[in-house]
């Protein structure tokens, strides 16, 4: 199987998972906000692609794609989304805080940008105890406007931390476009001012994006210094929830078309794979996750005794 086959299959897996949530959400089986990754799957898949044993990953509230791309077992994640007792966090975390402890994805925060400082501390630990492992932390372009992210870029540079700062730039902070929020003309230039090596890529050129990830991770492993990787992408559905939101008028549906035309799931020939492959895998994962959700709904709910456990 080629590298792209595995990568595409994982992207399909994530998209079908999210589509199953879209199908089930109105039944109220998931009683929490969900931030779907439809259209943005590739960032998480590539992060998992270059993730080695002993590496750490820190994400954010849009956590499904990262968790799915890392997990060997999907049931604990589904149970967590359903707030069941056997969920990965006992139902106390839910969609916005998914984790995959076996792969060192320990935590996702629902406060924008706040996972980035945590990642610097984990990187400090790895700097002291590992010759090759690193931390990859993903955040959106809205997070760049948070002071803690700017502080963390500085910490990464000053403390010489083995960390990959991955900016998932979809141009939106909920409904607010970049030009309203920021005077920056280049996020990479911002990182460069902190003396951080930068890489960039876009979903519009998947092969180049793949190479950028590969080079960025290689640079950190070899130099034990931080990098900043700017990834341009598009969010296809609403910020939180399951639907499209073109009717709100804050963006145009026509903007999406150029991203769909380069989407590797809708256009697998871009990466020399077939639509048949996509159809076959999509059908499989759709059925797989629908069955898993239906099965997991019958699992035990948390008990009152769980409320006060693991507070301190």
């Amino acid at each position, binding site marked *: 199987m080629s590298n792209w086959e595995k990568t595409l299959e994982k992207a399909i897996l994530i998209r079908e998972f999210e589509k199953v949530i879209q199908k089930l959400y109105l039944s109220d089986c998931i009683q929490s906000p969900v931030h779907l990754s439809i259209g943005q799957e590739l960032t998480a898949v590539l992060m998992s692609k270059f993730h080695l044993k002993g590496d*750490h990953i820190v994400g954010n509230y849009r956590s499904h794609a990262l968790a799915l791309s890392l997990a060997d077992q999907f049931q604990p994640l589904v149970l967590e989304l359903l707030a069941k007792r056997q969920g*990965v*966090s*006992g139902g*106390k*975390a839910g969609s916005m*805080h998914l*984790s995959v*402890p076996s792969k060192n994805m*320990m*935590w996702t*925060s629902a*406060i924008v940008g*706040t996972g*980035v*400082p*945590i*990642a*610097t*501390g*984990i*990187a*400090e*630990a*790895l700097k*002291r105890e590992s010759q090759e492992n690193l931390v990859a932390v993903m955040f959106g372009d809205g997070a760049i406007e948070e*002071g*803690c992210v700017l*502080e*963390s870029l*500085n*910490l990464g540079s*000053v403390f010489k931390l083995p960390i990959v700062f991955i900016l998932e730039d979809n141009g939106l902070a909920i409904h607010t476009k970049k030009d309203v929020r920021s005077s920056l003309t280049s996020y990479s230039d911002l990182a460069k001012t902190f003396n951080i090596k930068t890489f960039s890529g876009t979903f519009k050129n998947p092969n180049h994006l793949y190479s950028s990830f590969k080079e960025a991770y290689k640079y950190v492993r070899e130099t034990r210094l931080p990098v900043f990787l700017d990834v341009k992408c598009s969010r296809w559905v609403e910020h939180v929830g399951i639907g499209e939101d073109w009717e709100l008028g804050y963006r145009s549906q026509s903007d999406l078309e150029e991203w769909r035309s380069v989407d590797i799931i809708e256009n697998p020939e871009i990466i020399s794979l077939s639509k048949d492959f996509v159809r076959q895998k999509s059908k499989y994962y759709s059925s797989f996750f629908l069955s898993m959700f239906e099965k997991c709904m019958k699992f035990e709910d948390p008990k009152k005794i769980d409320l006060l*456990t*693991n*507070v*301190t």
Partner: protein
Amino acid sequence: MENKFLLTNEEISYSKAIWLALGQLMSNDKKVLIYGLGVDDPKAMYETLSHFPSFFGAERCFDTPLSEDSLTGYGIGLAISGFKPIHVHQRTDFLLLCCNQLINIAAKIKYLSNGDLSCPFVIRAITGRSWGQGSQHSQSFHSMFANMPGLRVLTPSTPQDVFNTYLNVFKDKIPTIIIEHRMLYKTKSLVKQVENIPKMTKISSGEDITLCSISHMTLEVEKVTNTLSKKGILCDHFSLIDHSNLDIDTLLKSANKTGSLLIIDHGWLNCSIAHTISHLMRQKGFSGSIETLGYSNCPCPTSRILENYFYPTATSILESICKLLGLPFLEFDQLPISEELLNFKGPF
């Protein structure tokens, strides 16, 4: 462990007690790291970290950028990775910059990981007073932070308590804020090692009234109890350490014996630990008198004259005790302003 960090039979200062305890922690566990703005400078955080970089290596006691917010997250990241970081703040006021990480993440990370993660992260914060510390270098947020499940807040006030607080702080893997007070550093006493962080410590014993003091107020109350003892009035005086696990039963036993309780807080009283203690005492059936003292309901002024009105003083504490005991206040002399306050000339 190096001998220089062992306790002796001599009286030691509050700052020396911190130095010894942290020295023992650093000697016994290489995972303990100390960081924060100025921790390795010549003043060594009021001498509590003197020569630590040379004793333990510059990589274990290190200076940082000012970024309090992110450096709190950095500490959490280290803590969940197996380290035992201690983040030092020269003034407690700066903890407000750390609240997001402390409250939204440190306090919740064990709960939301269903117990998989623990966060043995210690925050040292120093509260200032006097000689113009003013409104932003004098605050103590123990009540605010104690409101948060998942955090532990400690205010040791004696050399023995601060020694045992630090020595035992990593036995429980709980994110912990330890609030020291600038005016306590020169206080001296003998120190006896114990195996756990005390929840509350008894400063003096008596049958006439129960007193519960917090932080530097413990010193002020001691001046009052010494005066009263000369007149035959003996006080059960407790100094509160652990705000997150209140030892109400001990206070209740004492107050049931004496019939009245005065709580002397080192903070504003609205939504305070003093009022929480008062409420819990009532809930547990105490029917005697309870009074509380704390900051005046305004920011701390820079003017020394106004500052003297802002804090509870030995005199105002004495006045409250007299009121609770039904004694005429004028019978006693006004008590002088405490020496550690009068003598303090800054600059910091």
